[in-house]
């Protein structure tokens, strides 16, 4: 379990992270969303014990990042937004080096290396030099490195950056399978639609403050002030517009470039059905009447200002 309690980080007068808190359980895949400079990497680095917080703390399976940093490190696999690979070293040697650091005994290491290579689909590259791998493969090798000690928590900072669509899809599948194995995964990314696909929890951060936090559906719903309904008419839009203005649950109304009317609607599903009945009853010929589904990207753009530190 990961429990972040009021983490705070200042650089002089600059507040990088302003007391954020959240907790995650085994199997949670947490999407950490924010613009560049929002405080994602700083937060991840603090959990990874690489940066000392100015306030607050975090507990990983009960180990405090301030009190027991070495125990915390045994629980986590940290993958930064860069590779940090060594030259003149083979894939299996790279993994052997980190497995040794994590205390995997020399007897177990060959088996562990084979397992993580198989999991990340790099078995055929076992004897290749790391600098000869493609970017996608290097990314997978970094993930393999994070897995050599079977950590409970994976901290992945922009793992999909610079990957082609196929490599992204493969990475996504891998993370989903790791989540199913009960690992807690924290992923920061800019590619929001992808995060929405496999994360069950998200947090949106801006200027060090957590703006939204919770399960993806709940966060998206909570972020909506009203439903948005798009209506296409066969008849005149002007008369329909006049009619809709008289409806109490219609909060906002504007025509779009396709000749549709986009309305903000504060009622529920029953009210939507009633509105459609009323429109038809008043002789408006409705071709299309549908509620627009908001997604993470909409929510992100709506609640953030794009301000950076």
């Amino acid at each position, binding site marked *: 379990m990961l429990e972040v309690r009021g983490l705070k980080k200042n*650089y*002089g*007068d600059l507040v990088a992270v302003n007391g954020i808190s959240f907790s995650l359980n085994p199997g949670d895949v947490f999407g950490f969303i924010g613009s560049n400079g929002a405080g994602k990497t700083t937060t991840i*680095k603090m959990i*990874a*014990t*690489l940066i*000392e917080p*100015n306030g607050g703390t975090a507990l990983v399976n009960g180990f405090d990042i301030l009190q027991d940093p*070495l*125990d915390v*490190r*045994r629980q*986590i696999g*940290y993958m*930064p937004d*860069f590779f*940090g*690979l*060594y*030259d*003149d*070293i083979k894939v299996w*040697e790279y993994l052997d*080096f*980190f497995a*040794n*650091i*994590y*205390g995997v005994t*020399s007897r177990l290491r060959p088996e562990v290396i084979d397992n993580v290579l198989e999991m990340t689909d790099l078995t055929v590259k076992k004897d290749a030099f790391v600098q000869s791998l493609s970017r996608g493969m290097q990314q997978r090798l970094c993930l393999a*490195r994070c897995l050599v000690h079977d950590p409970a928590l994976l901290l992945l900072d922009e793992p999909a950056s610079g990957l082609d669509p196929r490599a992204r899809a493969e990475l996504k599948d891998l993370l989903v399978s790791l989540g199913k194995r009960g690992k807690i995964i924290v992923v920061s990314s800019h590619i929001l639609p992808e995060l929405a696909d496999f994360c069950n929890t998200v947090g949106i951060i801006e200027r060090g403050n957590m703006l939204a936090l919770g399960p993806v559906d709940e966060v998206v719903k909570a972020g909506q002030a009203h439903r948005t309904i798009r209506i296409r008419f066969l008849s005149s839009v002007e008369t329909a517009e006049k009619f809709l203005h008289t409806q109490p649950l219609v909060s906002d109304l504007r025509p779009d470039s396709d000749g549709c009317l986009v309305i903000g609607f504060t009622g529920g599903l029953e009210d939507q059905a009633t509105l459609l009945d009323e429109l038809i009853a008043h002789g408006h010929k409705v071709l299309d009447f549908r509620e627009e589904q908001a997604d993470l990207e909409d929510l992100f753009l709506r609640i953030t200002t794009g301000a950076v530190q």
Partner: protein
Amino acid sequence: MAAQTWLSRNIAVYVDNPTAMRDFRAQLRGNKAIALWSLYLFVMMGFTLINYYTISQSGSLSVTDIQFRLRSFYDNSMYMLAAAICLITPSLTAGSIVVERQRKSLDLLFSAPVSLKGMLVGKMIGAYRYTLMLLILSIPMTSVAVVMGGATWSDVLQTYAILSFGGLVLTSIGLLISSLSETVGAAVIWTYLASGLYLYGILVVGSLAPPTGPSSSDMPFLLGMNPFFAVMTGPSHTLTAGHEIPNWILIGLVSVLICRLSLLGAASHLSPFGSKETQSFRIQSALYLFAGLLLVGSNSRAFYDPKAVADAVGVLCGILIVFMPNILSYSVDGGKKFGYDGPPQVTGTFTGARSGSLAYLLLLWLAITLGVFIALLISVPNFAPDPGSQLARETQLVNRLADYIPPFFYSAVWTFGFLFMFWGLARGISARAKTLKNSRSGLICAMVLFFGLPLPVLSMITANDVYRENGLFSNHIWAVYLAYPFANHLATAPIYAGLMVVIGFAGLAAERERLKQPVISG
């Protein structure tokens, strides 16, 4: 159970070290390694041939001449080896940390449960293994000298041991500088500068040191810390507490201690505020300084001159200049480690806090002055009495001690003022600097201003002056130089110390003035 844990932890650090293993794989892999070793062997071979050609050019020679030439052949071979060690070993570690920092693999290591000790020792093992390879590959060359009769295998082994210790110290200096540097270029340049300074310092201090061995032909072991003197100090001994200890053992011990301090310094720099590495570094640096002075100074031949005692205190405190910017300076961008944390406090002495910098500096000063003074008290009763004197031995000893105390006292007080002045100035400058770099640069500028610049200026002014009988300049303008009474062991040194304390307080006043404005934050 505790012993088992200790053993397994040390095996992990010294035997099954992952960093050393990784470096080993990369070092000995591919054509590059073969080419480098071959080049080294060719250079050594070429030098040996030239060396042999030089000594073999003559007709009939006496046995003594032949012996002398064979010894020269051996000596020259060892000088060549020393040059190879001094040139190659600093570069082995100069880039090791800074490259990891630039490649950002350091973050990967520190997110894993790796101890700083394990990582740094691993890098040292990798570099030392390389040094040993250099020595092993040169065995055919030195064998020629042994076979021809220029040296014995015992000489060779002792010299090799000293050379390898020299390589160990130079690689540890490289590692320390690498941990402090931000770019590879800077790390390499500073490492070679620091190594050069170390070798030169050993040369100067070692040359001034009196022979501490049982016979006057024994070289002081201190000189052997410089690999170029390995061949001379190898067969020598040092008299310590009545025992003749081979120099190579003492050199090995001191090298390991220097190496340990360098690694602790690097670990302290890489670790967060208040780490146990910083505390160990601070405690052990003071302890080694004190113990080292006691060990060396208690030798009856060490303090042959009252001025040598005073100089020892001054020179050792002067060496602290190099570390002062790191110990004293702070800034708003320095974070918890190098940020302002309030007025001076004793509690911060070992944590690395800026508030404890004065206490730590004074602790080092105390370690030096007490170390020298106690060593003096131990060694004075062992002085041989003057056979021509009519006075009793006890009276002679008291008189002798009376000769030593005043210059020692002047020196101790002067260095106190010197350290206090720079502490105060560092606080004043730091309070006004916007970055740590500016703060440190400012302090270095102040050092140059007070002690560097006046030297050439005053030397030019007094270039044609004649010395008075007591060795002082006839032109009194030198009195404006703060180090003048110290350098000449004058009784006015305490007055200058007072003046420097006043300058220190001026720095503190400047800091207080600046702190009234709400700019500094922790």
